[in-house]
């Protein structure tokens, strides 16, 4: 072990190369990961951050909250379905509104506060109370647009007073506004004149039920309806699943490249030290001892690469414009750190065969 560590200490230049390469790879992967997370969380926040375990949609909605059309009278039928603990109406409207500092993009969610579909990520103030009209909880992202508790946001001229903030609740990358079904419907009628005259229409029904509940049975409560779990509803949002799988395959391919870079680096290092390793074997070093040294070096290089790469990525995170949906999550960092370490060590393992093949007898006679 002394051998491995001294080699790094006294050959900082060459090890700096591999650490630099690894940190750039880690940086790239972390930024991609932050983008993947940002897109995913930004698109699906509104369906992940509520009490709902599943949603019931009209049959033609294909799992889209925006496209779905149900009636308030369906809520009671769904509530009576086997396994359902709570059912609540959900109205969704993608629109724009007037905030304190000008126009804002919005996704307005009409819910029945306290029932299924109520946000669970309140970070400031309170949620609108049941039956309270003209009040709304806002997505924390709206703070950037100057919205505070007590501000007013108007949609199509219908005002709502902000009474609280909920975190991680974007929908299709737009900040959300959580209000009563009544206020939601007024706003809908104001901006979508063609939908007027449907006083009991809602988009979908949020359901609280144990994870083991059969969703098909719930869907059967309403003719022609379908039901998806909250997670499936998130993935059914257009582009979400495709974005995640594309970015994840880029991330894992890049990590495989990290493994190859480490493999190549240590293969060269071992090649260069063949004569020395032959002599050390002749002196009584085992292949295992020499191999463990190389693996320790790869692990040290990987750890340093991860630390530097993460630092770079965080610094980069500070200068990314807020419009770019990025989210630096510790979970993702830990996963990527583990994968990099594994890729580095696996890469170095390829050198073991080379070390094992070095014949100590070549140390004598001076001819390799």
């Amino acid at each position: 072990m002394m051998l491995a560590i001294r080699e790094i200490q006294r050959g900082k230049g060459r090890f700096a190369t591999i650490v630099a390469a690894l940190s750039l790879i880690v940086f790239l992967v972390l930024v991609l990961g932050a983008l993947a997370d940002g897109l995913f969380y930004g698109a699906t926040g509104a369906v992940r951050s509520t009490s709902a375990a599943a949603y019931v949609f009209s049959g033609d909605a294909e799992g889209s909250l925006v496209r779905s059309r149900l009636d308030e009278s369906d809520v009671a039928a769904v509530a009576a379905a086997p396994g359902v603990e709570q059912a609540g109406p959900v109205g969704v409207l993608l629109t724009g509104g007037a905030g304190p500092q000008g126009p804002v993009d919005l996704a307005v969610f009409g819910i029945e506060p306290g029932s299924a579909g109520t946000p669970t990520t309140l970070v400031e103030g309170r949620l609108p109370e049941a039956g309270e009209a003209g009040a709304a909880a806002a997505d924390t992202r709206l703070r950037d647009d100057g919205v505070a508790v007590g501000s007013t946001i108007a949609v199509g001229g219908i005002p709502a007073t902000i009474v609280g903030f909920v975190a991680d609740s974007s929908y299709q990358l737009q900040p959300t506004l959580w209000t009563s079904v009544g206020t939601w419907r007024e706003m809908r009628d104001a901006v979508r004149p063609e939908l007027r005259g449907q006083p009991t229409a809602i988009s979908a029904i949020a359901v609280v039920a144990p994870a083991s509940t059969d969703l098909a049975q719930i869907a059967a409560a309403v003719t022609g309806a379908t039901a998806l779990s909250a997670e499936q509803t998130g993935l059914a949002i257009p582009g979400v699943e495709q974005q995640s799988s594309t970015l994840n395959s880029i991330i894992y391919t890049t990590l495989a490249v990290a493994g190859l870079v480490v493999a190549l680096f240590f293969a060269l290092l071992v090649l260069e030290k063949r004569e020395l390793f032959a002599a050390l074997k002749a002196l009584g070093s085992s292949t295992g001892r020499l191999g463990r040294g190389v693996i320790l070096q790869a692990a040290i290089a990987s750890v340093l690469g991860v630390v530097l790469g993460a630092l770079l990525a965080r610094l980069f995170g500070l200068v990314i414009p807020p419009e770019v949906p990025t989210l630096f999550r510790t979970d993702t960092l830990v996963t990527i750190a583990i994968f990099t370490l594994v890729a580095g060590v696996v890469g170095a393992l390829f050198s073991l065969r080379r070390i094992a093949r070095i014949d100590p007898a070549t140390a004598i006679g001076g001819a390799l």
Partner: protein
Amino acid sequence: MTDAMTPGPTSEDPVLAATGSVPNGPGEPPALDATHHASALLRVSDVRKVYGEGHTEVVAVADATMAVDQGEFVALLGPSGSGKTTLISIVGGLLSPSGGTVTLGGSDVTGLSKKDLTAFRAERVGFVFQSANLVPFLTARENLLYVASLVKGTSRAQAQARADGLLEELGLGARAKNLPEQLSGGERQRVAIGRALMNDPDLVLVDEPTAALDTAMGRQVVELLRREIKGRGKTGIMVTHDLRMVEYTDRVFEILDGHLTHVEEPSALRH
């Protein structure tokens, strides 16, 4: 006998220098000589090494038999390709012979597994290579400590004390913290000698130690080797093709085309 072999005024004997003759004729065959060394520390019996098979068969060493006593420093002399490297590699546990046995202090080396051979080399054999082959990123002292770490149960403090003592004795006390690249060729070879002696081996094998050195430096190194090996009661074998270096040894085994031909007194080879 030891004293008689030490280089002294006799090495400048004008008669010998003038005639260049071999005064006491060719020595005995090593196999016969071995019978005179009943209590030899190292005994090589009928060792063969054959590479390839069938019509590509090459006999590198043929039925080598030799015996070296404890405290002896001998030379294995032969031209390149004579099999001296193969023979010394077998003796040092680096190569397995195709036949025959090597015993060191009564224990058979040839039967050892690869793993046991590694431990055997670390604990009982010291090697000095042609080009010192020190670890370039370890200081002189660390090069010595590294081989100590290869032997299980060596205490760190003990190893450090021994390394410091050896370096001092080899005149390298002031160079202990230097990296090999900061040392001269002779100093590097002296560090290599210290490394070979570090684990207090029974046998010290030296492979062409002067190949990379000029004559004066070469003589110094070989003289030092002799002093250390004999002073510590070790058994040393030096592979060389350099006749000038054999005067520092007690006996010379000659090898040609894989055959150990005879054993000489070094004085017989003086020229």
